[in-house]
């Protein structure tokens, strides 16, 4: 039997008050197994990013169950959630969000240091070498190209060996060739580590590289088959 890494059961989320009140997620249910990859597509405002935030514990859902590796995120306090996220969920952003005054090595070491890893810098070095940046350890983000910055971000997300990697438009700020290279890196890293991957993108071709795809519209998950439509 396949191990379930992510379970979403009837998750609802409403944002805003009064006239601006919008139902962002409407009864979303989803199961994802270890090593599985899922591409989430849909038009702007369909709820893709909100779903990503809810399942990584960054947004509190109004109702429903969100369990990662069997831990119900809705039951955790803010600080416990932050710690859990640091160890179990890796996040890659469209804008990289590296810490400008820290070197590539230090950026990758941050989640390890926060998690209390005994040798954060050795581990960070290994991760950077894996993404091909072994020669750029002491460079600051401002001294790296966009593609290199995203590779540092991927190394940082992978370093704590999370159960699940979440990527929000990871190639959105990159040129086509660099984007393809980054996507290759993401998929191969997850495959090598048997890691679950969730990917939000507008790029149907990128989503197509995932084992499964879902399409979202008005806060609802449409049939998986419709993702190809």
């Amino acid at each position, binding site marked *: 039997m396949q191990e379930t890494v992510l379970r979403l059961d009837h998750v609802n989320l409403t944002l805003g008050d009064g006239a601006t009140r919008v139902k962002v997620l409407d009864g979303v249910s989803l199961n994802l197994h270890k090593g599985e990859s899922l591409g989430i597509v849909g038009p702007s405002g369909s709820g893709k*990013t909100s779903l*990503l*935030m809810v399942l990584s514990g*960054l*947004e509190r859902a109004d109702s429903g169950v969100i369990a990662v590796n069997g831990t119900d995120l809705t039951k955790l306090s*803010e*600080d416990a959630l*932050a*710690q*859990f*996220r*640091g*160890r179990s969920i890796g*996040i890659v*952003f469209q*804008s990289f*969000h*590296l*810490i*400008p*005054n*820290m070197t590539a090595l*230090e950026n990758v070491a*941050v*989640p*390890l*240091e*926060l*998690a*209390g*890893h*005994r*040798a954060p810098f050795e581990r960070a070095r290994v991760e950077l070498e894996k993404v091909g940046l072994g020669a750029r350890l002491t460079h600051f983000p401002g001294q790296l190209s966009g593609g290199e910055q995203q590779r540092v971000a991927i190394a*940082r997300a992978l370093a*704590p*060996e999370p159960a699940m990697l979440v990527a*929000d438009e990871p190639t959105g700020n990159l040129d086509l060739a660099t984007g393809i290279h980054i996507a290759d890196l993401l998929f191969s890293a997850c495959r090598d580590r048997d890691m679950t991957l969730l990917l939000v993108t507008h790029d149907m071709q990128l989503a197509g590289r995932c084992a499964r795809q879902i399409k979202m519209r008005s806060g609802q998950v449409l049939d998986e088959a419709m993702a190809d439509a």
Partner: protein
Amino acid sequence: MLDQSLSRRGWFGDLRLASRFGLRELRGGLAGFRIFLACIALGTAAIGSVNTIADGIEGSIARQGQSILAGDLGFELVQREATPEEFNRIEALGTVSKSVGLRSMALKIDGSDQSLVELKSIDDVYPLYGMVVTSGQVSLAELLAPKNGVQGAIAPQILYDRLGLKVGDRLKIGDIAVELRDVLVSEPDALSEGFGFAPRLMISDAALVQTGLIREGSLAEFGYKVRLANPPSTDGLKALQDDLKADLGDKGFRIRTSANAAPALSDSIERFSQFLALVGLCALLVGGVGVANAVQAHLDTKRPVIATFKSLGAGHGFVAMVYLVQIMVAAALGVAIGLVASAILPQLAGSALERFLPLQISNGIEPRALLLAGAFGLLTTLAFSLVPLGKTQSVTPQLLFRDATLEGGGTAGWPWKIAAGLVMALVAALAIFTSQQPKIAMYLLGGAVLSFLVLGVVAMLIVRLASRMPRARSTVLRLAVGNMYRPGAITRPVVISLGLGLTLLTAISLIDTNLRSQISGSIAGKAPDFFFVDIQGSEIDGFKTLLGHASPNGKIDTVPMLRGRITALKGIKIADYNVPPEAAWVTRGDRGITYSPVMPGNSTLAQGTWWAADYAGEPLVSFAAEEAGELGLGLGDTVTVNVLGRDITAKIANLRQVEWRSMSINFVMVFSPSMFKGAPHAWLATLADPSASAEQEAKILNTVTRAYPAITSVRVKDALTIASNFVEQFSMAVRVAASVALITSVLVLAGALAAGNRTRLHDAVILKMLGATRRTLVSAFALEYLLIGLATAVFAVLAGTVASWYVIDRIMSLTFSPEPWIAFTTIALSLAVTIGFGLAGTWRLLGQKSAPVLRTL
């Protein structure tokens, strides 16, 4: 798996990791902390410098105690010498040096001019410690010894200049002529004898006897300095002082030790420096607003990093710790700069002070002063940083998915606000408990906090008023008013920071101007033109006749005068009596007292009845009503006064309302006449002659001095000039301290304007894109700065006027007069600063190209 290689950190581990992250993050430099650093450094430097100077002076007084006192022990008696028994008691302690001090007139030998002098006679063994410095090399004994039958004297250069004399010239003192043999540069015990109103003239004890100036009731001070064979420790000296006080204290002796050689000066310096340090603390509190603004601006720029930390598993408390470490590192740097300044500035001030204080001021580092200043700097930073730090709670990793919402905002939770309040309370407690005048410290801090609150309300009212103003037809006015209430408007920080600095400056300027105009104007107008002291009973009629001829239009008043010291109240020894600080001057040292069969003309009866003109019963006293109230005295209570070595106890028969502002002869205590029947005493006279010109005044002075060389004449104008100079020096120091507060205000203002400029740039670019000219935008910004500056200045003028009125009218009991020019200056200064600084920053912005900014919108 990662979990297998994890270790648990605990609180200390969190702090270490937070410090590592914080320091790594600081690699970008402290560019955003310039105003922050300046505010902390200035405030710390102000407090540190003032305390260092004060501690330096006090330390010097303590170290040079033997020289300052010119002995290990000092005994003083007023109006009488020690009896043989008393002298034997003093002489048994060690080597004794006797000196006599009194004010007298020195007349040029040709009688053409004269000057009041502080005459001092010394014996052969003076000084027991330290040395008298003259401009020549001849010994003191030789300088003062008689030559060809003429006694020698030395005086400072100022007396030579005043009377046009040179070494070798002669002066008439009392009944004899003395020859000026050298210029007196310094005498060791000048500090312990207090500030003189006139130049010193030093002669030998034999010469003093020949002058005939020591007569019945003369206002002379007899000093006995003792050099102990084996001077004990400070505690031993104190114990000896206590023993001697028990033996001699109730006989009118004032006893001092080298451990506390100049108590009045020490007290004055302590009080004044604490006042200045509190003004410095106010500057630091004003700077706190700048700190809060800078911390907020810094954290706003760090919101993406904060969100990233949180997305990687950091909790809110940990993230706050990272930035608290950064802020405290920056604060430590600011404090260090301030402390370096605190160690350097007093060296410069010390040299300047040595011109006023005959004292070698220590130039060392004063650890207590620096520690205190450092603690104030760090605690103030912490207090003003906690609320902005608490706001980072609202920064969540969600922001990383929505770049457009990375601007500042949010509110701090109650725990952060309470913590900030507690740290602020700690700052206040530190200021109050380290002050020797906790009440004044409390009032001043309370005033500063109240000003903060009131200015906060004023800022809120301005914002509300601006938001409710009807839509103006003028684009410029509409833009200006809109800028005053939009989110991120500069109104609040500018009103609070500049308002506090300007209020302080207005209050100090008004107090200073009022004090000086009182001295030169109303006090000079009301006061008599001359005081004459040491008039013998046998001389009083002849003196009045002479004065009547010399000043036909003058009004002459005479009263008998003795010196007395209160030794007990209600039968309780004064040392054990609870004397409130405001009434301490009444019981401290000798006071002038008088007797009268009738109530003095410038008083009104408040309680009780005046005694009959021929009353001859038990001793009665009339006490000044306000001072009696402060001392808790009422009708029927007893007052014991030591006069000429004898304790006299009188019952309070009535309380008088004394009009001290009248500047005529006033006494706290007026006794029934029978009490001093037969007691030797002199008379005090005043002459008021408003019509007399300067030449006529000089002539009156000359006539009196020539006819009565032993009578001391004090020209009130000269005394007021000295008082005015003193106020000028005092106010200069206060102004320097207050200007630190104003500079800090301006720094905070500049910081707030710079922070506001980020938003202003976007507005300006969009408005330019929509067709606004540079002129329209500059006019709108200038108008906005003008409105805020004007509102702040109006408040500062009102608040400063109320504060100064309270000090002048209620505390000093003087007449307050508002000074319109100070109000105008304050308003002009406020407008110059707000418009000047505001437009300087805005002008640069308006020159920037639109495209780069539009791309980021």
